[in-house]
């Protein structure tokens, strides 16, 4: 599903440049649940930005669902993001004046799905994260865990190939974190490919594979025995 070969990225900071990613080789198959770990400055955010087509690499190859991702125009990148990727953010990033269902429908709006169909689909995904009764509520009326579940429904609404979660539990307490992870695991059980960036060990162990980044290179890449979040809920 995702294939990265010898990926390099550096940032120019005034006169000297900062080499952040120093040749990443990395492959994710269909249906995987991968945790990307690393301390701050390890390059995990940069990797996520590149995977999310929010930023371009300096050199190297990136193929997503057999489509080479290179030199994209802004419009093309937006189209690909919309088609291939679903984002889950640490701070949820729901649009605060839109109701839960409208937030979920937003990616579909950008896909130019007709209003009625959009509404139905959004409802379906909201139901899947168990928030159907909250459909008309504004984000300010939801708890942190509920907000993240709305965000997950939003990420899934466009039926992307890959879900990218950037510290999805970073702003939640541990109980809510496990609830969210439980949901992510269940979505993965259905066959969806998910990448989770985290620095929390327990969250990482709820995935099926951990990729450890340090100073711009992968230092460890191992399959693990998944800890089910269900038992903590």
């Amino acid at each position, binding site marked *: 599903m995702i294939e990265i070969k010898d990926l390099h990225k550096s940032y120019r900071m005034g006169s000297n440049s900062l080499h952040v990613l120093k040749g990443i080789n990395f492959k994710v198959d269909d249906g995987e649940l991968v945790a990307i770990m690393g301390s701050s400055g390890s390059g995990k*955010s940069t990797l*996520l*930005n590149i995977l*999310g087509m*929010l*930023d371009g690499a300096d050199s190297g190859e990136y193929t997503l669902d057999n489509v080479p991702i290179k030199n994209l125009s*802004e*419009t093309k990148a*937006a*189209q690909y*993001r*919309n*088609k291939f990727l679903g*984002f889950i*953010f*640490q*701070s949820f*990033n729901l*649009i605060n*004046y*839109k109701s839960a269902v409208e937030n979920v429908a*937003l*990616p579909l*709006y*950008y*896909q130019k799905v007709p*209003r009625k169909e959009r509404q139905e689909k959004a409802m379906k995904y909201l139901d899947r994260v168990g928030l159907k009764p909250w459909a008309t509520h504004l984000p300010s009326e939801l708890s942190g865990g509920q907000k993240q579940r709305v965000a997950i429904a*939003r990420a899934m609404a*466009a039926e992307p190939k890959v879900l990218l979660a*950037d510290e999805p539990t*970073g702003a939640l307490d541990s109980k809510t974190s496990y609830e969210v992870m439980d949901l992510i695991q269940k979505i993965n059980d259905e066959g969806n490919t998910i990448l989770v960036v985290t620095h929390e060990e327990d969250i990482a162990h709820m995935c099926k594979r951990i990729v450890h980044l340090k100073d711009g290179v992968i230092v460890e890449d191992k399959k693990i025995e998944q800890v089910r979040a269900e038992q903590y809920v």
Partner: protein
Amino acid sequence: MFDRDIWQEIFNTLKTNKLRTFLTGFSVGWAIFILVMLLASVNGMENGFVGQFNDDATNSIFVRPGTTSKAYAGFEANRRIQLKNDDLEYIKQSFPDDIEYISARYNANATARYKSETGSYFVQATHPDHQAIEKTLVIAGRYVNEADVVNKAKVAVIGRKVAEDLFKKEDPLGKFVEFNGLPFRVIGIFTDDGDDNAERRIYAPISTYQRIYGNTNDINMIALTYNPTYDLTKALEFSRRLEDLMKRRHKIDPEDQAGLYVWNYAEAFENISSFTAVLKGIGIGVGFLILISGIVGIGNIMVFTIKERTKEIGVRKALGARPRQIINLVLLESVFITSLSGFVGLFFAWIILAALGPMFQTPAFSNPSVSASTVITATIILIIAGVLAGLLPAMKAANVKPIVALSDK
């Protein structure tokens, strides 16, 4: 463009920032208000001027004799020129295509008496065409006609004030009134928009008065209107031809300004038109300058809004919003605020003009109003203004990197 979601978003931003929206919109609304008021005022002045001059037909020319100031063709200077009936016929035959109406004027004063009432009035003896030239409005009876002139009939068309003065409550039509002892039959009463003096006047057939004053052929003045299809250039060219011809006929030096006066209404009218055009230009100019500050104000606020919504825009982009969709959103919002506030300004201006406009009926200023064309122009201006105000912020918004969605501040 007419997407419910876009409108929902626009209303939402406006709703969450009511005061800001109001203050921003106010500047544009105020600008449009001033622009419309200025234009309406100029319009009012124009109406006033035109109203004053409308008393006479605007395509009229007056030919009045004077005293020569230069020796010419064997004649000495200081020769008095006298127009005669022949001159009228001569002009008529010389310019059959140029002339619409033509009439001579013979002026006299008359002491009028009816029963015990007397009064002194100005009598203007004319041809029937004079009614059209002077735009005399006959409210009862009729004006002098061709038969009156041929028969030298002792008939009179009296002003409304004359009728009031002499006849009090009686109906003057058909009654005989004495002018300097001679009985004249009242055949008509006229009214005039001008001052009261214009209604203290009497019209009579020219031939009648020429006979009374010693069977003369003299006339005081020739009034005519030219072909109404003529534009200003053609009208001026005609009056020049007329002047040349009359000067030749009366052996006046073509350069002599005092021998014969040919006064063309179009000239004066043109001066007024250009005067009001300049005023209108100033009005539009000032209005636009104020509008520019309004546009800058909206642009300013939009930039601020975009800055505030950077994260949201980033999220939208991460979710697949194309730069174009973001630009549309911002532009539409800008156009919406600008147009809405502009129309509010327009509406207030319209209300005030509708309420106060009819109160201004002075000669120099009447019926200031907003025309449909002003409204349409204002609408176009507002949409352009909205786009201009939103353009920079929209581009700024389109340049927001979706990465900001990931950075947690």
